[in-house]
């Protein structure tokens, strides 16, 4: 197997491009695809302050690494979700990555700051664990990004993630979500700009990127996610991809090019009906936002007013963050895509 660029020994085949790559040209390919996504969808400006949501998994660490490599100023945000030993280990990977590179990592400890963990919250709210997790993370991502004065929040959603969410929303015709499943969600009152620079790269490529770059990441699956529908959609799409390379890319980018616009009016109508949460002030369609309702049902509590959502972990050369008034989001974006850090 030879590299399509230099004819040297290849380390990976990417069948949807009908191409094999050596180490150097594979890394170049990853950087090029991220740069292309950022440019094509106007995701990030060169002088933007970037906050990357990191989970300790491959995608979030890879996107942080890639953004730094492309010259962006990017800090990390890790949320401890209280999923037993899994959260303990995932936090270690995030901190080790930041410490080794002298990066700033902000951290939120959900049980410590809000008095509940994901398993407890899911049971109390009678939500699926991934739903309670996504809801909590979206709220905290937004709050931390806005308080910290960041211009943009980056998540590690990749092509597989987006294709799987699109598959699920199409399978059940959740038209209210289809208009919002975009690589960029622009900033608006109470929401930071959110972008997904990995939409042109697959999970397999991101795992390979981490192996090649020597990035240690948490390989084990979240115990709360085992057996969920999202995984079964990914497996189904990969079965199709095996016999039809490029199918996932065509599905997702075809949707963006030719279909998403048809669902935009419905998504916009949802957004114009937002008010402020009575408890925390976050944008919501209800009197109390979904996050505050989850906290209440789980027996937790909101921190005192003025308490910063995320605090910097002292790993390396950190910078002081100002803390503005919290104006946060909660549940209005449920299911658009994962609240996942990937």
């Amino acid at each position, binding site marked *: 197997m030879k590299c399509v660029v230099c004819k040297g020994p290849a380390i990976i085949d990417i069948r949807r491009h009908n191409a094999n790559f050596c180490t150097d040209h594979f890394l170049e390919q990853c950087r090029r695809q991220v740069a292309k996504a950022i440019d094509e969808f106007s995701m990030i400006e060169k002088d933007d302050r970037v906050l990357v949501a990191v989970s300790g998994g491959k995608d979030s660490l890879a996107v942080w690494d890639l953004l730094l490599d492309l010259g962006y100023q990017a800090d990390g945000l890790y949320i401890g979700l209280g999923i037993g030993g899994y959260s303990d280990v995932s936090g270690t990977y995030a901190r080790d990555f930041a410490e080794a590179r002298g990066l700033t990592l902000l951290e939120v400890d959900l049980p410590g700051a809000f008095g509940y963990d994901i398993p407890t919250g899911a049971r109390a709210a009678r939500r699926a664990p991934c739903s309670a997790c996504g809801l909590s993370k979206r709220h905290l991502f937004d709050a931390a990004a806005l308080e910290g004065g960041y211009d943009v929040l980056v998540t590690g959603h990749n092509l597989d993630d987006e294709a799987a969410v699109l598959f699920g929303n199409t399978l059940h015709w959740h038209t209210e979500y289809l208009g919002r499943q975009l690589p960029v969600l622009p900033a608006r009152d109470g929401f930071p700009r959110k972008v997904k620079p990995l939409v042109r790269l*697959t*999970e*397999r490529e991101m*795992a390979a990127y981490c192996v090649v770059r020597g990035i240690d990441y948490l*390989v084990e699956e979240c115990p709360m*996610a085992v057996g*969920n529908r999202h995984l079964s959609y990914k497996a189904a799409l*990969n*079965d199709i991809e095996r016999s039809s390379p490029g199918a996932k890319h065509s599905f997702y980018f075809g949707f963006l090019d030719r279909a998403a616009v048809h669902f935009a009016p419905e998504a916009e109508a949802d957004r114009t009906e937002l008010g402020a949460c009575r408890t925390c002030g976050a944008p919501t369609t209800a009197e109390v936002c979904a996050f505050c309702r989850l906290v209440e049902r789980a027996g937790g509590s909101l921190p005192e007013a003025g308490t910063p959502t995320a605090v910097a972990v002292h790993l390396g050369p950190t910078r002081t963050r100002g803390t503005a008034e919290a104006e946060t989001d909660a549940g209005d974006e449920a299911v658009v895509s994962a609240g996942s850090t*990937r």
Partner: protein
Amino acid sequence: MHPGARRGLGPAIIDDVKVLLRNPRREVEVPGPITIVNLLARLDVNRESVLVIRGGELVPGDATLADDDSVEIRPVISGGA
């Protein structure tokens, strides 16, 4: 019975390819030499969903594993929607 024994060769003479699988973590042995493509087909693993790693490095699909190789088949699909 050890696969090598089926071929009239004892396990002391021929080792099998040791394969580490994840989620759940387990180890299986497969007679070598065998290509990566054939290994994944034999284990009914979709190539789109995994990487094959040997000694911390990626192993390309057309590589052939020797009898005494040890590889990891690492899943790349993660959930959490």
